[in-house]
């Protein structure tokens, strides 16, 4: 089950106003006539978060024990390392 908060891009502490604002933002991003599938997801997520019982159920089912372990890597920004100016200068000089 996709976490509706992830779909709308709101935190777990987001209130009704914040959820509504995020929904309107996403609708502008995915208008129904241009991105019907994405819009459907956004709409479902909003409906779920609007209904307290559906919201509670979504919260209960937010974790997926069968998800691949590698999902912890998905979308994560790897560590960025300071390597000093030299490697950067090599690129600048290369052309």
């Amino acid at each position: 089950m996709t976490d509706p908060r992830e779909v709308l891009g709101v935190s777990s502490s987001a209130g009704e106003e914040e959820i509504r604002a995020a929904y309107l933002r996403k609708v502008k991003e995915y208008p129904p006539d241009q991105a019907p599938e994405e819009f459907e997801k956004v709409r479902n997520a909003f409906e779920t978060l609007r209904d307290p019982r559906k919201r509670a159920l979504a919260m209960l089912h937010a974790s997926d024990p069968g998800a691949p372990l590698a999902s912890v890597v998905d979308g994560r920004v790897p560590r960025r390392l300071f390597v000093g100016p030299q490697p950067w200068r090599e690129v600048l000089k290369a052309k």
Partner: protein
Amino acid sequence: MQPKLTTGGQALCTPDHSTTGAAEETSIRQLLAHGKSKTALDRAKDLHKALGSAASEALLIDAYAGRIQALLDQNLALEAKSLIDLVRSRYPSAKTRLDALKATSAARAGALDELLAPLADPGLGAEHRAAIEQAVQNKVADLAAIAACPALPADHSLRIAAAALDRAFVAATSGLVTDEEIALPEVSHRSPLGSWKLLVRAIAHFYRGEDDPCRECLGAIKPESVPARLIPAMHSMLDMKPAAPLTAAEAALVSRATESSAALRNELEKLDRAFADDEDEGRTFKLVRLAMQECRRILPDQVETLKRLIYVRGSMNAVDEERMIAALQGPPRQDAAFFRALAHGMEATGADEDLAMACEYWDEFRQRAVREGWFGAKGVEVATLYSHMAGLLRRIPDDELRDLQRESRSNRKLGIEDSYFLFPEKLYERASVLDPHPEGFSQWLSWAEQDSAQRGEDVAKAWHKIRPMDIEPLLYLLQAAERRNAFPSALTYLDKAERIDAVHSVVRASRLRLLAGSALRHLEQKKPHLAAEKLKAIAALPQSKQGDRPAFMAALGYVIALDRADDRAMDEARAEAIRLLGNDIAAGLLVCGISAAAKRRPVELPPVKSLSRAEQSALPAQIARLVALAKDVGIKKFHLPLPHLQEAARQFPRASGSLDIGQLRTLAETALAMGDDEFAYAASGEGLSRGGETEARFLVLRARCLPERQGTRHAICAAAAAELARPHRDMETVGEAVDLVRRALDSEPFTVTLDQAREVVQKEIAASDYPDGSTRGPDYSTLLPNQLCNCPKCRRARGETPTPFDDLDFDDDYLDDEKMEKIFTERVPEGMPPELAQMLFEVLKEGYRNGLSPDEILEELEDMGGLGGSFREKGKKGKRK
């Protein structure tokens, strides 16, 4: 002397100089445009030599400029510089133009002094300055060299800007920097080093993890400037996916400045496979250690999440907990997220004990989530959780759940309230208190009614108390009271339901039924005066005037009058019933049925034999009509005299053509209820022959009336009925048919296609005779799936008659002749001629001696024609378990 124009030594002879010059100029410019600068220059020189005009000089300078640019592009800076000097000395008018090329040449050659020196001249022309600044912007990559350039005074703005940028660049690539450090007020946005400022800021944002501002800065860098050379590498690091192929230097930078997660991903995929394949625990724990080690190195902020995921996966695979914790280097943090994941993991295994365990973890989750501020202690979230937990417990068989409850309580010495999470009723109760929502009550009621009728009523009463305007609990209570024959209570609930929703279909259909039931109940209790009151109430209902209902009221009035010994009322009621039903036989049968339902003394009817031929042949239609009326007014025990029913069955073949679909269905159902399978068979066959949407219903009736020995045919008819009912959304028939298939095949899934279902209908219509011992029935061998096991056990489970050889296990110990004969004699079918029995026995014996399998022996017997339908039905050659 005529001037001689040559191109590459070839003379160009033309009488008109101006025309020739214009054409040659065009040609030369085309050569320049195509990058053929050397040829262009040679021809421009020839043309200028021939014409010596200002135009030809301008063309020649353009050709020189093209040639110098080509040399610069080939990194032949020295050659370019020599040519610039030559042209400048010969053509002073081209000085400004050549200054730009000289600046580029100097920049390319790394001769910063030469490039920048003119900037120290206050009288430097704007065009020359712009050329130098462009060269600095687009060609010079060494900030430190600009900062230290001796050709410019130490306080020159370009040197100061370059020095500041160089410091900031070093700082941004070596550690986190503050906004002040990258403010760089020394560098104006119009400076040729302006793009460097944006680059330094982009790098600073990149290391701070501020990816959007980083992208904005990169987007503002001038694409032709030196700093733009870092854009592809930085985009690659930001998006973590290679865009265009990176150069060696770019790839080296990306690799050093970001840590790839590929190794961690690889370790985690291996671990996933190890869990899925249930590999050796030692190897699994080794993989856990490697994965955690890599995660700590690459994604330290994900360590806790990964720990939790791995621990839960281990719990689902029931691995050694201590060793798992050791491999993880410590247990996961026991917070709400952990218990939620653990509860989910236990749910996912589906095992009874794990489901109970999941409920315990959910309770832990609840407590921690409340403490951690996920939600309030008494909100809708907790109610939803309780309902979810109750739903999990419902998946555990009752006996198993009771054992688990007992075990849990005795192990921990807990009371029911403390271990409430293992008791569905406690969970539903708590959920309904916290969130009195119809859906929650509905789930609770659904659970309770499965447990016991009384518990169901208790829940419905609790629901009605908390939500008095919900109609569902009232309808439930009404129907429960009706089942108990508690008609006054049922009518009280009906009154309440009518006040909430008088047009509800169940509410509208209930009053007549309840009043009729109540009247019959009063008669049963020998209270005809109360029954008469109910009859009066029935008569006052507008719906009592519809269809045959007035006949019912008349017949009920007759039975009441009979009880009260009111002859006059009896005569009136009888006459009214005859008038309404059209004949006295039907009226008599109706009175008889009502009297039986009220458990009153039997009403005498004229013997069937005394009926005229016409009256006899009308019996099927009349019985169908009366049974339908009894069903309409809700009389449950409407029994008609057996001789009349038997006569109706006898008359059916002659009367069937005049019966409508509804009557045929009623008769088939009545016949089934009275155990007359043959009559039901005939009625269902007639119904099937009518076609249409009711085919599925008649096929179910056909399946139900088949003799037990035709178990496979029964299952095929039911499966075909399910398939035919689906397109018509007749879910009642689908449910009933699927249930029949499941019971017939001992839960083995079996379906047919729509075309096959139609074929079944045709074959069933053709099979008009009820199957007796010698009838095989339609051949469904082509429909029989291989998955239908043909072993004796499965065949018995399907209700089929076993053969005398079925129980012989050929893998058993050796059977001698005596033992074999004994087994055979016990199983030989009744009525089989002794000669044939002996012959079969000999074949069996010989086959056994030759090592034939049971199937092979049976096939041999069939080939000999020795087996009839009673032994083995054709086509049942499914694989043996």
